[in-house]
């Protein structure tokens, strides 16, 4: 190739070296971003059966992509150096080569076949209906928070989903308004929550751990789309059952005076119109998150704030300021009302 040109070996070796170094650096970048440590939403560390299956395809496709990248970059660079204009140089005049055309039609064909076969065989597993013993969960997207229901267990909660390890879970995806998308990268690829059209996905989480699996709405859904985050906790069967028992029951009734006053304030300020608190008479609103066990959650307002008393206060004093567009109004609560409400809410275990 280009043997008549002086310095061609240098050009080729130099190009290969450069492409090699660049590819290595990019690979380091990918490896770093794929690491769970420091990247809690990584798509590269599967922790469910279906996610692991998909990961096999993903790895293969990454490798194929890398090979094509190296090949084309190297050729482009080599040809640029080798055939750059030189005094007295002549361009060879030819119009094409049918045999080469056939060869390089076959190369991409082979590559896509190599992708297609594992893709489709994976889909034949993941698109099966969920196993019969699967735990049923309904995930409803709202502008801009998540409602989670366990119809068989009589539980309704928000923004934090509890799952038992090693048991399949079948998630029915719904929306109450616009299109959202349910995505917990380590557990499953995303599927949209489409209003008026229930979608399904299922997976079996394979690792119980204390840190949450982070998820986030992935389909642009309006003003606070960026603030529509959620968490999945995968627990041992025992821990899950303990959680479920508590979550299915009524709230813990307030005992301290301030909290009791908060209970009344919750009615007086009209919170009950939008929020349910099981065990509090008249608190059966459906517009906002179920607060029966609010104090058992780690975050508030769909992952926007940590659930600390100070943040609850911040939230109640002006939800808009925390989360643009939010559908909870600013109720202009007095400092005293805030004290009471925070005390009440913080005790709803």
């Amino acid at each position: 190739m280009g043997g008549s040109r002086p310095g061609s070996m240098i050009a080729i070796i130099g190009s290969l070296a450069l492409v090699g170094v660049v590819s290595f650096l990019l690979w380091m970048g990918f490896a770093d971003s794929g690491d769970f440590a420091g990247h809690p939403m990584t798509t590269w560390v599967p922790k469910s059966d279906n996610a692991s299956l998909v990961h096999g395809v993903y790895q293969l496709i990454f490798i194929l992509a890398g090979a094509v990248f190296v090949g084309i970059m190297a050729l482009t660079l080599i040809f640029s150096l080798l055939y750059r204009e030189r005094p007295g140089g002549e361009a060879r005049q030819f119009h094409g080569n049918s045999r080469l055309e056939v060869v390089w039609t076959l190369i991409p064909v082979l590559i896509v076949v190599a992708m297609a076969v594992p893709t489709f065989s994976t889909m034949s597993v993941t698109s099966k209906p969920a196993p019969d013993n699967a735990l049923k969960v309904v995930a409803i997207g709202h502008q801009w928070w998540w409602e989670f229901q366990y119809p068989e267990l009589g539980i309704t909660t928000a923004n934090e989903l509890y799952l038992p390890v090693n048991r399949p879970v079948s998630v029915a995806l719904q929306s109450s308004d616009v299109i959202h998308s349910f995505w917990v990268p380590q557990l499953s690829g995303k599927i949209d929550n489409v209003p008026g059209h229930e979608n399904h996905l299922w997976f079996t989480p394979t690792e119980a751990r204390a840190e949450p699996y982070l998820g986030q709405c992935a389909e642009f859904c309006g003003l606070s789309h960026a603030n529509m985050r959620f968490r999945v906790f995968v627990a041992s069967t025992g821990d899950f059952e303990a959680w479920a028992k508590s979550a299915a029951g009524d709230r813990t009734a307030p005992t301290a005076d301030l909290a009791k006053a908060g209970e009344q304030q919750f009615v007086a300020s009209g919170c009950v119109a939008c929020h349910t608190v099981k065990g509090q008479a008249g608190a059966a609103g459906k517009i906002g998150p179920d607060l029966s066990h609010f104090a058992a959650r780690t975050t508030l307002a769909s992952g926007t704030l940590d659930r600390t008393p100070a943040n609850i206060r911040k939230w109640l004093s002006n939800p808009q300021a925390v989360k643009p567009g939010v559908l909870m109004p600013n109720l202009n609560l007095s400092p005293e009302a805030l004290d009471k409400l925070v005390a009440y809410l913080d005790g709803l275990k």
Partner: protein
Amino acid sequence: MATALGAMTHTQEDTGLWSWLTTVDHKRIGAVYTVAGFLFFLLGGFEAVMVRTQLAVPNGTVLDADRYNQFFTMHALTMIFLGVMPMGAGFFNYFIPLHVGARDVAFPRLNALSLWIFLSGGILLNSSFFLGGAPNGGWFGYAPLSSIEYAKSSGMTFYVVGLLVLGLSSLMASLNFAVTIINMRAPGMSMMRLPVFIWMVLVVAFLLILSLPVLTVGLLQLYFDRVWGTSFFSPSTGGDPILWQHIFWIFGHPEVYVLILPSMGIVSEVLPVMSKKPLFGYSAIVFAGAAIGVLGFGVWAHHMFTTGLGPVPQVVFSASTMAIGVPTGIKIFNWLGTMYGGNIRFVTATYFSVGFIALFTIGGISGVMHASPPVDGHHQDSYFVVAHIHYVLFGGAIMGIFSGFYYWFPKMSGRLLDEALGKLNFWTMFVGMNLTFFPMHFLGLAGMPRRIYTYDAGMGWDTWNMVATIGSYILAIGVLVFVVNVIKTMRKEPDAGNDPWGGATLEWAIPSPPPAHNFDVVPEVRDRDPLWYNRDHGIAPTPVPEHNHIHMPPPSYFPLIVALGVLLIAVGALSTLAIVGLGAVVSVYGIWGWALEPTD
């Protein structure tokens, strides 16, 4: 006055504003398209830089959520419909007649009308910023977020009306280009001798002719939903939001090829000329382009893999999407084949073309990656896809267009752009582009969703977002270097001559800039590379007959009137019916006068 009859030295001197407003000369129209498209490209770039600035650090405070949503929506709309397409249309207008050996396009007045309607649409769409807020629902306008219930500001109505107006312009222009290419070719210019650029334009024209009507229907339905309370797409009243997605992407996917094919054409012109050898595999490139066009209509649902299509459509659309990788691969190999064995002159146009091959390839590879639905479950709506589209549309379409600027600017202005500034322009853009968009692959892998105006620290997204933002500033500087280059170049004396590159296509045989009638004598074409053939076979140009009466279409102000009518109809659709009526009257008057206008 400007009735363009006769001699070779007319109309070029007419430079008043009125002469531009009434022009039907494809070169002037092309020039206005290019300049306007470039200005909109700068505006879209400004929006992008603002978006990047907001995302530079976690919990950024530069733009609020609403402003951010308007900016990213308008960035896409501006770049696609007001920047890249019009800059492409500028080249089409200017070079189709020159390449096929014609004196103008088939319908010169219709051409002027397309231009004025495009400008009206662009201004209308951007005026929304000052009239209650720009569109904020994404360029894809997904239902039901685009409904009046969830998008109460008039922004999304501007989106509907603006795109309808722009679609009208593109549709007319496409018909005009297709007819010109098919009917106005010089003697000997058979279809398989057409420059590849012209082939790609032809494919683009058919893509638009077939896909824009679909979008138009969808937009009208959305308009009815928003303004008259119908429910085509609103699930709460029995409509289907997924229907909108199908309609949108049946248009939207071919649209991607509308953006990239012209640049593939430009590269296919620049590389052989600079390599000083014929294009490798002409027919393969042409057929691959046509195949991309046809297959491009059968892949739309790959934008919808996560909507719950079910496994069978997923497999079908996955297979068709992978299949489209094959003709794309063929093209890349053929460009490399063109460089192979050449004696490549590395001017700035070459840099941009070679840059195109490398960067477009990266976008092509990532595109094939998410053709696999399980992998797309990760990529969809993540920054990986943002990286992908920008490697295709910036690394591909824009690099190609810049190659075209450097290649054809001498023909259009008579002046060669400065090469030193050109190289600086290329390298800043190349480095900036890669710094901006490559890290987005990493962000996607780390799970960052797109279209979020803010993110928390601790997600591992900080570093690469900062790098991407710095990259976008470098990119912006690169684009400004180009502006400086143009200004500097326009101040010097013409120095290009007819043929600075040793070109193969017809435009290089005539003066730069070309006279209004293009060719003194309509050329006779004997080969795919006509000028090289004549050079190699010692064929002298046909002498100009002494009494050379060339009939050129006279200028006309009726296109302007019709465009004004269309603009009024659009304004009325956004405000009150009375203005629609007025617009209709103005349009009908314009069309009437147009029909009865003498043509010489």
